[in-house]
C-alpha cells in the first residue's frame, strides 16, 4: 500500500512447520483495507501443533482481522476470541496467542499483542524501544486473567517491524549452544545485524533469513512451528512494463519517451514491442540463445532495459507462477517468465503500458496452443499482484 508518494509498506511472512508435521500451527494473515487505506496483519499461534493448533490459530487470526478491519473495540474483540475458541481435548483449555498490527496511511501504527514474543522495531539499523501499555483483563465465565500489550507509535521511512511466533526465540532449546533457546535478545541482535549489513533486504528475504537461522538452531528439525513476519517501510520501487505494439504507429515515440524518462526498473514483454523500442531508442536487441527452455522463448538483452522477453507465452507462464502456491524462490528453472515474476515481486508500484494491436498470426487456428488476448492476460496479472501480493498496479492502454 502506498502511504503517500514516498512511502510504501511491504508485508511478507515465512513459515516452517514443526518437524514431522504437515500443517502449520501458526497462522499469518494480512489484508489491505482499501477504502480506509489501512494495512492489517495478524499473527496467531495455536496451542500445541498440528491440525488442532492450525484450526485454533486460523480461527483466531480470521476473527482478529475481521474485527479490526471493522474497527471493533480491541479489548472486546480479544475477549470474544477467547470465549469462542474450542477447548483443547488434551489440555482442557482454549488458547491461541495473537498479534494484530494496524497501519494507516499516515504511518500510525497500532499493535495489540496477546502472549506472543514482543515485536521488534528496527530504526536506522538499531532496535527502537516503543512504550507499551499493559491492559489487565478478566474473563469472568472462564475465570481466567489475561494481559494485552498495546502500543501506538508512528512509523518512519526505513523502519522494519518484525513479529514472530515463539518458535523463533525458542528454537534450539535444549541444545548445547542454546540451552534456553535462541532468546529474544539474540533475535534482536540478529535483526540489528541483518538490517545494518543488508539495509536493502526485502521483507521476504529478511523473514527468510530469520526463519532459516531459527531452523538451523534446532538442527533442521524444528521443535515448534516457526513463523516470522516482516513489515518494511521504504521508498517504493517502481517498475514499468511495456507490452504489445500500440494500435497507432504514431504512438511509438510516446512509448519510447515514457521508457526513457522513467526512473525505476524497466521491462519489455513482446518481440515486436522490443523491435519498436529498439528502433525508437536506437539500441540493439540481442537474443540470449543460451537460456533455452522447452516452454518459454528466449529472453533478450537491451541497453538501458532490465528485462526483454517474448510476449504472450511468457506472460501466460508468469500468470501461472503468480497464481500457483509455489514460491518463486523455490522454482529451479530460470527462464523469461521466472525472471519477470521475480521482477514483479521485487517491485511495489507496477505500471503496465499495453498496446492493443492484435497479431493476426496468433489467432491462426493452425497454432498448436491457444494464445489469449493481451489485455485480458495483463488484467489477470495485475489482479493477482494486487490481491495476493498487495502491490499497486496501473494499466494504461495505448
Amino acid at each position: 500500500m502506498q502511504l503517500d508518494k514516498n512511502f510504501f509498506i511491504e508485508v511478507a511472512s515465512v513459515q516452517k512447520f514443526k518437524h514431522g508435521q504437515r500443517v502449520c500451527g501458526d497462522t499469518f494473515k494480512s489484508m489491505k483495507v482499501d477504502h480506509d487505506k489501512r494495512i492489517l496483519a495478524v499473527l496467531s499461534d495455536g496451542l500445541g501443533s498440528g491440525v488442532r493448533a492450525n484450526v485454533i490459530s486460523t480461527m483466531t487470526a480470521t476473527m482478529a482481522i475481521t474485527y479490526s478491519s471493522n474497527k471493533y473495540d480491541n479489548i472486546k474483540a480479544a475477549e470474544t476470541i477467547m470465549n469462542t475458541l474450542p477447548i483443547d481435548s488434551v489440555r482442557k483449555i482454549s488458547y491461541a496467542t495473537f498479534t494484530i498490527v494496524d497501519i494507516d496511511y499516515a504511518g500510525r501504527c497500532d499493535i495489540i499483542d496477546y502472549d506472543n514474543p514482543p515485536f521488534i522495531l528496527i530504526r536506522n539499523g538499531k532496535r527502537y524501544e516503543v512504550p507499551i501499555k499493559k491492559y489487565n483483563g478478566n474473563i469472568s465465565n472462564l475465570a481466567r486473567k489475561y494481559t494485552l500489550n498495546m502500543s501506538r507509535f508512528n512509523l518512519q521511512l526505513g523502519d522494519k517491524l518484525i513479529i514472530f511466533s515463539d518458535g523463533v526465540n525458542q528454537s534450539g532449546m535444549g541444545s548445547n549452544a542454546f540451552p534456553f533457546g535462541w532468546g529474544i535478545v539474540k533475535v534482536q541482535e540478529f535483526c540489528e545485524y541483518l538490517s545494518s549489513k543488508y539495509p536493502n533486504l526485502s521483507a521476504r528475504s529478511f523473514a527468510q533469513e530469520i526463519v532459516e537461522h531459527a531452523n538451523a538452531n534446532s538442527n533442521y528439525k524444528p521443535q515448534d512451528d516457526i513463523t516470522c513476519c516482516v513489515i518494511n517501510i521504504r521508498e517504493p520501487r517502481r517498475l514499468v512494463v511495456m507490452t504489445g505494439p500500440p494500435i497507432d504507429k504514431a504512438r511509438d515515440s510516446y512509448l519510447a519517451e515514457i521508457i526513457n524518462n522513467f526512473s525505476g526498473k524497466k521491462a519489455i514483454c513482446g518481440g515486436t514491442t522490443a523491435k519498436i523500442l529498439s528502433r525508437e531508442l536506437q539500441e540493439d536487441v540481442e537474443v540470449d540463445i543460451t537460456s533455452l527452455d522447452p516452454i518459454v522463448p528466449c529472453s533478450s538483452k537491451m541497453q538501458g532495459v532490465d528485462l526483454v522477453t517474448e510476449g504472450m507465452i511468457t506472460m501466460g507462464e508468469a500468470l501461472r507462477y503468480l497464481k500457483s502456491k509455489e514460491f518463486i524462490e523455490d522454482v529451479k528453472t530460470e527462464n523469461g517468465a521466472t525472471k519477470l515474476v521475480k521482477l514483479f515481486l521485487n517491485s511495489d508500484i507496477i505500471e503496465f503500458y499495453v498496446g492493443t494491436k492484435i497479431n493476426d498470426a496468433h489467432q491462426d487456428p493452425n497454432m498448436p496452443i491457444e494464445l489469449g488476448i493481451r489485455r485480458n492476460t495483463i488484467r489477470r496479472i495485475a489482479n493477482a499482484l494486487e490481491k495476493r501480493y498487495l502491490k499497486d498496479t496501473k494499466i494504461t492502454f495505448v
Partner: protein
Amino acid sequence: MNEQIRITVCCGTTCHLMGSSEILIYKDEIEAKYNHQVAIYGSPCLGNCKDYAAVNAPFVLVGDELICQANKDKIWHTPIIFIRN
C-alpha cells in the same frame, strides 16, 4: 576466407510455438559442421508472421534468404549453397 554467414532464427511467439528453438539447440553442431563460417543468432519477432500464414513458421534468415517452415534438417543443408558461391 569467405565472410561469415549470419543465420538469424526468429524467437517470436509464433515461431517459437512452431518449433524454432529446435534449431537453437543444434547451434553448436551446425556451426561446427561449416567450420564456423556460419554464425547462428536469435532475434525478436522478425515480423514475417504478419505477411505469411502462421503455418509457414518458423522463419529463419540465412544471409538475406528467408526460409519458411525451417527445421534443423533444412538449416543443416542450406548454407552449403552460400559457402560454395
